[in-house]
């Protein structure tokens, strides 16, 4: 590996990878993925899968704000593709490129894991909500039945 500071070398690719010009002052889509890749490069080596809490938080925040799972994944995919192309051009030393590719792949898997678990959690919540709705429907059916019989009886009794 060369003496290049990889974190700095990748940092300068931010504008190109995230296409920041296109998005003006707003946080460009996929910024959380790029930051996670920088963080992975900073730590170096393998971390425990899924322990990047910042990435977890950032993805969860995007989902909570209404971004779809598909858009989060598509952004991660886009950052991965662009970073691979950009690092190929800007890092002449193959071992340096390999470190960047490893970090990017690690982050891509983590994003997919977080999104999948969020989707599964949503499914669990939906399942529980459906059960509650069905229980409420049972109660409403009983009430409707009671109301129906009351109305019939009252109509009979109030007839002149």
């Amino acid at each position, binding site marked *: 590996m060369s003496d290049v500071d990889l974190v700095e070398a990748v940092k300068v690719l931010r504008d190109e990878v995230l296409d920041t010009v296109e998005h003006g002052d707003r946080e460009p889509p996929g910024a959380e993925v790029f930051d996670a890749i920088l963080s992975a490069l900073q*730590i*170096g*080596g*393998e971390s*425990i*899968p899924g*322990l990047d809490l910042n990435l977890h938080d950032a993805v969860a925040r995007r989902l909570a704000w209404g971004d779809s*799972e*598909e858009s989060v*994944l*598509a952004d991660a*995919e886009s950052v*991965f*593709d662009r970073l*691979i*192309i950009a690092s190929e051009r800007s890092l002449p*030393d*193959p*071992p340096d*490129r*390999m470190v960047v*590719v*490893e970090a*990017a*792949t690690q982050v*891509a*898997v983590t994003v*997919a*894991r977080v*999104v*999948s*678990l969020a*989707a*599964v959690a*949503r*499914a*669990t919540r*939906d*399942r529980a*909500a*459906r059960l509650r*709705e*069905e*229980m409420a*429907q*049972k*109660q*409403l*059916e*009983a*009430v*409707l039945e*009671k*109301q129906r019989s009351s*109305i019939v009886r*009252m*109509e*009979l*009794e*109030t007839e002149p």
Partner: protein
Amino acid sequence: MTQTASQHGIRVAGDTNVGKVRETNEDSMIVDPVRGLYVVLDGMGGANAGDVASQTARDAIREYVMQYRTTTDPRTLIEAAIQHASATVFNAAQQARERHGMGTTVVGCIVVDEKRAVVAHVGDSRAYLLRNGRVQMLTRDHTIVEELVDKGLLSAEEAERHPYKNVLSRNLGAKPETRVDVTDVELRPGDRLMLCSDGLYGYASAEAIQYLLGSGDAPEHVARDLIDLALRGGGGDNVTTIVIEAPQPPPSSTEVVRTTGAMQWWQRRSRFLQIAKDRGLTKNPIVRGLDPEEALELIASSLCQAVFHDLEKSTGVNVWTFAQNIAGGWFERSGEWAPLRALMDILATAARAVVDDIGVADPKLGFLLSIAVSRALVVGELAIGGLLAERLNRVDANLIKVHAAMQETVDTAQETALEDTGDRFIDNPTVPFLRPDRPVTSPGVSAELIKAIEQTITIARSRTSQRAELVKQILSSLETIAIDATGNFASAVLAAREIYGVRPVDDTGIMPLFDALDQARIITAASVHQITAPDAMRAKVLRALSSAHQRLVGATTGLVLEAVAPYSERLREVQAKTSEMRDQVAKFERKRADLERKYATTIDHSQPWEKRGTTEW
């Protein structure tokens, strides 16, 4: 109005509400834990006499019990108190013309001790007993229809439709004396008694009442929720309920560890981290390059959290995963055994110190925790032992040859499958976010690159545990996708479907999938460094395999999203139906209110109240 109390471990709560239709609350209740007296009364009779009747009876019962409770046995006491109340209400009704015909139902209970209670009732207020999750009714309504059923003159079905099914055959106040039904109840730990007026069971289903009573929530929450339930069901009458809970059985050792033990452990988290730091965790070679705080967070804090979750759930899953991840990552980097052993010893020492601290404050809890925490750490050691065994297996060079031979067969089969499927996934992608316009990132696949990819995957397979079938399957898929440089997504989607297989849509189904994908990624990255090729070629191999990996992960996640989609759709359908039903209930309620107003004008007030028909709908 909510009243809560507890005495001798018996927890009680009572709540009452005027409802959504009536203007006055004619229900009354007594919640008196000192004398163990709990009563619900439902007054009736026009011109505000209902509330007078129920309050008069309430005061009479309370006074009688206070006066005679030390000299009379509970069964006789409650029966006599209710008789006394009946006479009192009757006399009060005679003294004022506008109160003629007023009366009240009653259901009361004297809790003698935590093992015995006596329930008595007159009218259609009820008592229920919840035991082992099942609800049984302790009282039988005193209505004319119910008595006709008892005499065999009406069937249960006819009774349900009978216009006078709510007309009472007995109450307090109609005569100076009344017949009181008294029942002895043997209480068991965790039993719940519930007393209520007809405003509850008339507007809530039996299933919903059973669900709330058996929910395990505190009595005050159950009482409040029962009232809410009746209000949501229409709230057409005053509603009152009292929930009495017999003392819970003493918690088992497992429950103590799960609750108090886990909490005590977590509260000493900073102490655990401090000891781990003092013992030199941050200087261990495994965390070299990490900031000390970060090392503590990644290793010690993760173990502390894993032990906490395992204590909470009485499992060893979290510590097992923790140990596998730490040891697996270290071994993949060709780490030595000694630093890992030292790291585990430091963590065990810190854990023992924390458990000792807890033991000083509470010796019994300390003893239970020492067993539970030791078991968790042994599980961690077992996980590492498994990895070591796998490492030894890898030494067997023959394994490489066996895998290579097997793979040749698999490759041929996969090539045939791909030829059959063609490009159909490009035109109609089944995975939502896989964009067909995605640029092809592969730099092109030369014969030399294909050879290097094959070599990498062969080494990766040899490094994979024999039992890790899913990881081996992923490695084969990576090879197929990486060699396919046409930009075709078919290979990724096909492979993802193969890997996804059939699995439950929950954490236990999805997590192993991503664990295997992560493991395959780590093994592949390590294997690239072992092939005989120049650095530039290695970089190309890693790029091709990583791109393949990323596509495979994307396609797999797409399948997860496909699998969860029906849950949201079904929920929306059910919600729409509930909304329609609510509209219907509101419509009927309006119609019923109109009819009730119309009917009220036809009541003949000169008749005794029993003969006026009934306003109890």
